[in-house]
C-alpha cells in the first residue's frame, strides 16, 4: 500500500471529528448538501418499482462477483482483441509503477486526469509528481480540491465541503481568477485554465464505472465532458480500475446506470455515458492511439475470500450511503482520514488499510441502517459493520477473525466489562439482585456516568423493577 505515510493519520479519528464538529462552516456545508441530495434521490425514483430495480442491481453485481475470475479473463481477452493493453497490479504501488512506466515510455511530461477514486486510493498524483510528471485533475470538484492541496471529501462531489466563497477565494489565490459568487463565472474560468491542458497533455488517465467482459468495453459516467476529453484528446489513455468493477453483459449496465446516477445525485442519467472499446482505428481522425487498462487488486481479492465480506465488492460507488449517513453529515468526509469516507469507507477501508489503522471506523455508526436502506445494490452495510466490530475485538470464538489487523481494538478493560455483563446477565438470580440493589439504592445513583452525562442527564433507576411489579401484582391477586 502507498498509504504507509498516512497510516498514523488514519488512526487520529477522534481529534479530526472534534475539529469538524467545531467548524460551523463544515457543518452547514455538509448538512445543506446532504439534505439536497437526499431530496433529489427520492424524487428521481418516482414512478419506479425501486425494490425490484434494487433487486436487479444486486443480482447483476452478484452474478459478476460469482464469476469474477472468469469475467476478468474474458474482459482481458476482449480488450486485447480490440487493441486495449491490459495490466494487472496486486497493490496500489504496483499500479502506480505501471502507469509511471507507460508515461515514461511515452516521455510524457503532463497528464490530464478524469475523476478516479482508485487513483486517489493509490495516491497516483503524488507518485507521478515524484517522477517529474505533472498530473492535473480536470473534474471541476477534483480541480478545486487539487488547488487546495486537499483530498476529496465525498466520492461523487469531491469539493462538497467548500462553499462558493471559499472556492472563489481559493481560485483567486491560486489562479488569479477574480473573486465572484457567480458560479457560471468561476466555472468558465476553470474551463479556460483547463482547455490548454487538454490540448497539450501527453496522457489522459481516467477511472472506469463498469468494465463489460462480454464486449471489452469501458464505461465512464460523467456530466462535465472532462472525462470524454481526457479519454479522447491525448494520444494515450490509461484507464485504472479495481478488479471488482467488471460486469458480465452489456445489458447489465442498463440497471446499474439507472441506479447509479439516481442514487448519487438524483439525475435520471448523467450528461455523458462514454463507452470505450479500443484505441483509434484505421482512418479514424481522433481518439488516443493507445489505450491501457490497469486492473488493481489492492486487497480486493482478500475480501473476495469471505462470502459475507464479499458483499462489500458489489459497490458501484454512488455515494448514497454517505449522503444518507447521519454521522457523515455531521463530521464530513475528511474526518474519516480515508480515501472512501462514510459507510462504504467504513466497510471497505479496513480491507485496504487493515483493521489496526481503521479501528475506530466500524464503531463510528449508530447502526441506524439508513445506508443499507438506500444502497442501490443492497449491500447489507450494517451487517458488515457489525462483522467488522466483531473482527476488531476478536469477539467470536466460533468464527475466527480473518481481516488483516483483526483484534487490534481488543482491550482488556473492555473484555473485562463484557465479562462482567455476562456474569450478571447470564444469571437470572444475579440479574434480579442487580435490579434489587439498583432500586433500593437509587438515591445513590451517580449523576455522572462517563461520556453519557457529559451531554445528557443520567437516567435514574425506577423505584421497583418490572420483575418486582409483576411479582407483587401476582401475589396481590392480579392476573
Amino acid at each position, binding site marked *: 500500500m502507498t498509504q504507509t505515510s498516512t497510516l498514523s493519520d488514519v488512526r487520529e479519528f*477522534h481529534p479530526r*471529528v472534534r475539529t469538524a464538529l467545531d467548524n460551523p462552516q463544515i*457543518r452547514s456545508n455538509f448538512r445543506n448538501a446532504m439534505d439536497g441530495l437526499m431530496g433529489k434521490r427520492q424524487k428521481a425514483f418516482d414512478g419506479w418499482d425501486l425494490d425490484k430495480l434494487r*433487486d436487479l442491481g444486486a*443480482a447483476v453485481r452478484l452474478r459478476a462477483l460469482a464469476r469474477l475470475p472468469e469475467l476478468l479473463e474474458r474482459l482481458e481477452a476482449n480488450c486485447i482483441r480490440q487493441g486495449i493493453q491490459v495490466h494487472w497490479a496486486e497493490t496500489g504501488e504496483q499500479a502506480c509503477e505501471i502507469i509511471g512506466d507507460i508515461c515514461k515510455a511515452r516521455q510524457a511530461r503532463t497528464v490530464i486526469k478524469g475523476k478516479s477514486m482508485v487513483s486517489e486510493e493509490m495516491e497516483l498524483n503524488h507518485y507521478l509528481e515524484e517522477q517529474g510528471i505533472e498530473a492535473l485533475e480536470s473534474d471541476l470538484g477534483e480541480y478545486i480540491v487539487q488547488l487546495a492541496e486537499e483530498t476529496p471529501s465525498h466520492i461523487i462531489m469531491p469539493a462538497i465541503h467548500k462553499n462558493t466563497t471559499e472556492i472563489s477565494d481559493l481560485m483567486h489565490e491560486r489562479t488569479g481568477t477574480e473573486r465572484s459568487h457567480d458560479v457560471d463565472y468561476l466555472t468558465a474560468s476553470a474551463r479556460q485554465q483547463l482547455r490548454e491542458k487538454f490540448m497539450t497533455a501527453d496522457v489522459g488517465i481516467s477511472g472506469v464505472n463498469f468494465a463489460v467482459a462480454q464486449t471489452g468495453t469501458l464505461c465512464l459516467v460523467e456530466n462535465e465532458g472532462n472525462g470524454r476529453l481526457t479519454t479522447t484528446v491525448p494520444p494515450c489513455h490509461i484507464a485504472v480500475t479495481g478488479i471488482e468493477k467488471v460486469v458480465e453483459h452489456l445489458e447489465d449496465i442498463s440497471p446499474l446506470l439507472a441506479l447509479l446516477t439516481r442514487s448519487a445525485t438524483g439525475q435520471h442519467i448523467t450528461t455523458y455515458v462514454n463507452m470505450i472499446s479500443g484505441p483509434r482505428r484505421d482512418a479514424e481522425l481522433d481518439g488516443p492511439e493507445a489505450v491501457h487498462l490497469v486492473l488493481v487488486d489492492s486487497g480486493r481479492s482478500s475480501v473476495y475470500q469471505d462470502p459475507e465480506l464479499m458483499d462489500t465488492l458489489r459497490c458501484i460507488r454512488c455515494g448514497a450511503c454517505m449522503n444518507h449517513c*447521519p*454521522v457523515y453529515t*455531521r*463530521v464530513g468526509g475528511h474526518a474519516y482520514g480515508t480515501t472512501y469516507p462514510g459507510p462504504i469507507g467504513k466497510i471497505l477501508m479496513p480491507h485496504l488499510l487493515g483493521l489496526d489503522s481503521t479501528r475506530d471506523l466500524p*464503531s*463510528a455508526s*449508530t*447502526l*441506524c*441502517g*439508513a445506508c*443499507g*436502506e438506500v444502497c442501490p445494490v*443492497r449491500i447489507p452495510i450494517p*451487517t458488515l459493520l*457489525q462483522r467488522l*466490530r466483531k*473482527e*476488531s*475485538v476478536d*469477539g*467470536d*470464538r*466460533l*468464527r475466527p477473525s480473518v481481516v488483516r489487523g483483526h483484534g487490534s*481494538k481488543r482491550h482488556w478493560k473492555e473484555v473485562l466489562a*463484557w465479562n462482567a*455483563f*455476562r456474569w*450478571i*446477565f*447470564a*444469571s*437470572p438470580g444475579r*440479574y434480579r439482585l442487580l*435490579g434489587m440493589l*439498583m432500586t433500593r439504592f437509587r438515591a445513590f445513583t451517580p449523576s455522572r456516568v462517563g*461520556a*453519557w452525562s*457529559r*451531554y*445528557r*442527564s*443520567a*437516567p*435514574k*433507576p*425506577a423505584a*421497583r*423493577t*418490572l420483575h418486582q*411489579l*409483576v411479582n407483587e401484582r401476582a401475589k396481590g391477586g*392480579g*392476573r
Partner: protein
Amino acid sequence: MTDPIKLYPAKPEKVYFFATCLVDLFYPDAGMAGIQLLEREGIEVLFPQDQTCCGQPAFSSGFNDQARDVVVPQLDLFPGDYPIVVPAGSCGGMMRKHYPELFAGTPWQEKAEALAARTWELTDFLLNVCHIRLKDQGKPVKVAMHTSCSARREMGIAEVGPRLLGQLGQVELVEQARAEECCGFGGTFAVRHPEISEAMVNDKTEALVAAGAETVVATDCGCMMNIAGFAEKNQRPLKGQHIVSFLWERTGCSDGEGEA
C-alpha cells in the same frame, strides 16, 4: 432479496412479555402499561421471571461470545407456542433479526430461529394483531413521535406509532424535520463517540422543539433516554415518554391498576 412480507398471526390467547432490561430497570411503567394494554385486549400475559437482557449491547459491540452466553439460558423461557412481544424495536430487532445470525451453525440455531419467528414489537402487535381501538380520555396535547431506527428499518413499523396516535382524538401529532434521522443513541456509540452522538441528539432535540411538541413519544427507551436526557440537561422544553405508557395513560388506565 426484497424483505419478505410480514405475516401476522391470529390474535392469540396468551403472549410472552419480554420486558428488556432498560424497561425493567428504568422504565417499568412502560412495561406495566404494555402488559395492561395486552390484558385489556383479552390476552393473558406471561412474564418469565428469569428474563434479563436480549444481549444486544455485547453483540453490537462485537462481543458475540458474551452475547450468546447471555441469551442461551433465556432461549428456554418461552416454551409455549405463543408470540413473544417486546416493548422496543431495537431489542425486538435483536431477537427477530440477529438471533438467527448469532446462533447460525450452533446447537441453538433451531431454537433461536423459532424464537425469532415468534418475536413481535409491542405496538405492531397491538395494532396489527390485536387490532386495538383506542379511546382518548385525556386533554388536548401536542406530541411528536420518534420511531427508533431499528423499529423503522429492522422491524419495518414506521407507520405503526403514528397510526396508533391517530386513534387518539385529542392528541395532535406534529410534523418534525428529518423524522427518519437517527437520534444519535446507537447503544455504546453514545459513549464511544460522544461528540458525534451529541451533535446528532442536539439536532434531533431542536427539530422536536421546533415542531412545537411538548412531549416526544418514542418506541424505544434508549432513544427516549437520549433525547429527554439531552433536553433535561440543556433545559430544552421537551419531555420524553414511551409510547406504550402514553397510550395507556391516554386511554384511562381502564382496569384501575395503571400507574400514570
